[in-house]
């Protein structure tokens, strides 16, 4: 009997040794966007080090991509069963969920450390499919000195009336200053920022959701009122002539450095470029940055509405042999300490619970300003390019994002094209 027990114990020890040896050899692969964003890379590296310290012998090997090549690579790799263990994903990519490529993470992440609204962006059929890391709001950044020189002042709530906003655009254009610096040359969304903020405020959260879901027409009178207002701004010279080809990074530089512009509507991840050092394309240290609310048309259903969205997230490949371990890796990020670290390093909101008051240093005031700007807002969760699909999305990219703000089509034609594409599904 004793010998049997000894043999069983020996077998158990051998098995455990084998398991730990196997674990010691485990390497998790991580494919991520943000190849050119040092602050985010540093944050992910910090998470990797934290996880590796808690899991001796397990290593995480990150590969950094730009977004579009990453998405193309993932499509092929996942279908071929060669996908990485963990990868960057965004809530719009529901095709991953529809085809069973994502591991539900409810049972693996400490959900009490994740904001409910952020988790909801990834909730499908009651399950959460990603770690919602990057959150952002759509803001209108502006040059406070330039605004003052043009003879304008913001009211306490930071929101000009639609009429005053138009006067501001006209005044800036009259002075040879680009009123709204924006470029849609390499991204499918920034050109539509202001149009959609005005639209959201005009028709309110529910109707806006209906519009993006294809259940409300773009030719609806309220929608048209918002588009007509935008067309009047465009005709007043709101956007630069190089709008259709200016790239996102160029628009940042244009706004705060050369030649300089009055406003830049942008996701609050503006900081990931602007707060780099000036020699790396960041804004000058003494740049007079302010945040204003988008204008609300008279009779708007929700003047305090604003767009918020979950951006960069991380998913676990359901087919990975290391899926459980990969989920543990993501759990290392679901921690308020990591949330605070994200705020400090990246200076953008996050879906992980965090405390903005912990941000110190030169950009602490910026965070206070951002908090104040968002304090009284109601948020619509999701951006058009994250919600629209297929031909409707393609038409949005070409028309609402580029051709309409570039003045190549008018409000009526834009609405007609959107209705045609979105009603066709």
């Amino acid at each position: 009997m004793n010998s049997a027990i000894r043999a069983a114990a020996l077998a158990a020890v051998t098995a455990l040794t084998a398991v730990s040896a196997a674990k010691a050899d485990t390497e998790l692969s991580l494919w991520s966007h943000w190849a050119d964003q040092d602050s985010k890379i540093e944050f992910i590296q910090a998470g990797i080090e934290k996880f590796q310290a808690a899991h001796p012998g397990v290593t995480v090997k990150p590969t950094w991509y730009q977004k579009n090549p990453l998405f193309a690579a993932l499509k092929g790799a996942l279908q071929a069963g060669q996908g990485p263990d963990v990868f960057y994903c965004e809530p719009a990519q529901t095709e991953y969920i529809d085809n069973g490529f994502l591991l539900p993470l409810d049972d693996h992440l400490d959900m009490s450390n994740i904001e409910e609204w952020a988790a909801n962006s990834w909730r499908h059929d009651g399950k959460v499919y990603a770690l919602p890391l990057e959150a952002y709001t759509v803001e209108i950044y502006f040059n406070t000195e330039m605004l003052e020189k043009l003879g304008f002042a913001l009211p306490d709530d930071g929101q000009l009336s639609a009429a005053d906003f138009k006067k501001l655009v006209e005044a800036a254009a009259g002075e040879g200053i680009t009123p709204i610096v924006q470029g849609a040359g390499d991204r499918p969304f920034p050109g539509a920022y202001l149009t959609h903020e005005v639209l959201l405020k005009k028709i309110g959260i529910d109707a806006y959701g209906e519009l993006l879901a294809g259940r409300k027409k773009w030719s609806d009178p309220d929608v048209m009122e918002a588009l007509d207002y935008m067309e009047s701004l465009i005709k007043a010279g709101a956007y630069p002539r190089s709008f259709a080809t200016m790239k996102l990074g160029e628009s940042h530089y244009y706004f705060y450095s050369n030649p300089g512009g009055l406003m830049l509507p942008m996701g609050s991840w503006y900081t990931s470029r602007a707060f780099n050092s000036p020699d790396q394309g960041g804004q000058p240290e003494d740049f007079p940055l302010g945040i204003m609310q988008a204008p609300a048309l008279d009779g708007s259903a929700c003047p305090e509405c604003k767009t918020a969205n979950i951006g960069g997230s991380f998913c676990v490949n359901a087919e990975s042999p290391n899926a459980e371990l990969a989920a543990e890796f993501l759990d290392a990020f679901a921690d308020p300490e990591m949330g605070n670290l994200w705020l400090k390093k990246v200076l953008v909101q996050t879906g992980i619970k965090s405390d903005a008051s912990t941000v110190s240093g030169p950009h602490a005031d910026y965070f206070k300003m951002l908090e104040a700007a968002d304090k009284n807002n109601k948020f619509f969760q999701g951006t058009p390019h994250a919600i629209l699909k297929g031909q409707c999305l393609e038409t949005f990219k070409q028309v609402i994002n580029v051709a309409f703000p570039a003045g190549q089509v008018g409000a009526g034609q834009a609405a007609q094209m959107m209705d045609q594409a979105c009603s066709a599904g």
Partner: protein
Amino acid sequence: MTDASVGRWGIRPVGRVLKISPDGPPLSTVTMFLTPALLVYLVFTAYPVLRTFYNSVHILHPRAADEYVGMQHYVQMTTADPTFWVAVKNTMIWAGFAPLLDVGIGLILAICLYAKAPFARFFRIAWFTPVLISYVVVGILWMWIYNFDWGILNGALRAVGLENWTRAWLGEPDTALVAVMITHTWKWAGFNMVVCLAALSALPKEVLEAAELDNCNWFGKAWFIMIPMIRPTLVNLLILSLIGKMKIFDLVWIMTQGGPLWATETVSTYVYKRAFQWQTFDLGYPSAIAVFWFFVVLIAVMALKYAFRQRDKLEY
């Protein structure tokens, strides 16, 4: 009367070794040398092509059985997809004009070099250099040239007082396609120049000397003698250029991604968008476009070959 010892494909036993021909190497040697190349061809060319044909009549579900839909994708593509027809139109415009530009400019440059124009050695290198530059670099370079604010093109127009002519060349539907076509021609004219120059250099001197004796000037020699004599080369260049234009993707993707307002959308960029940017794993529909376009290119090439066939063989 048949030789009973000859098997299928002409393989016959020679002594104790199977050979294709009596003087050739043994069949085993032939097989050993051919198999690797054949395998590469089967895996990387034949299979993808056949798989694309298969995909085009299916809806693909990555983790479930493929769904046969017959000609559904083809019907949808031709009857209910306006973007597809815009892409076809743009590609046809490109394939119709750009080969003439490419080959025409290449021929003119080659004749200049053949005629020993001043600094010919320098220009030969300078004109060929764009061929050696990657599409990414060419695309970025010309995006700078076309930049509205500080591009050299608008800068030059401003410098000569033509401010009103300045525009966002790649950002406006009226000019974007032409702007990208010019860039492509700039890149490839040098290749056509080199091939034409090689063909010109191979022409028999006696014919040209005879023309000179008849007081034929340079234009006459070029038009009546050189061009007809290098016609097969020109036709081949046109066909190669046409095929390239029908498949054009990289430069468009780098410079405009098909915009603005689909003004530079080509069939290839549209296939890519449908395959990789449509938030679906189903490659059925883009495969149908690819198959359809494969046959269009095939027919275009055959038609061109037929139209430019040489009825009388030149003798010199």
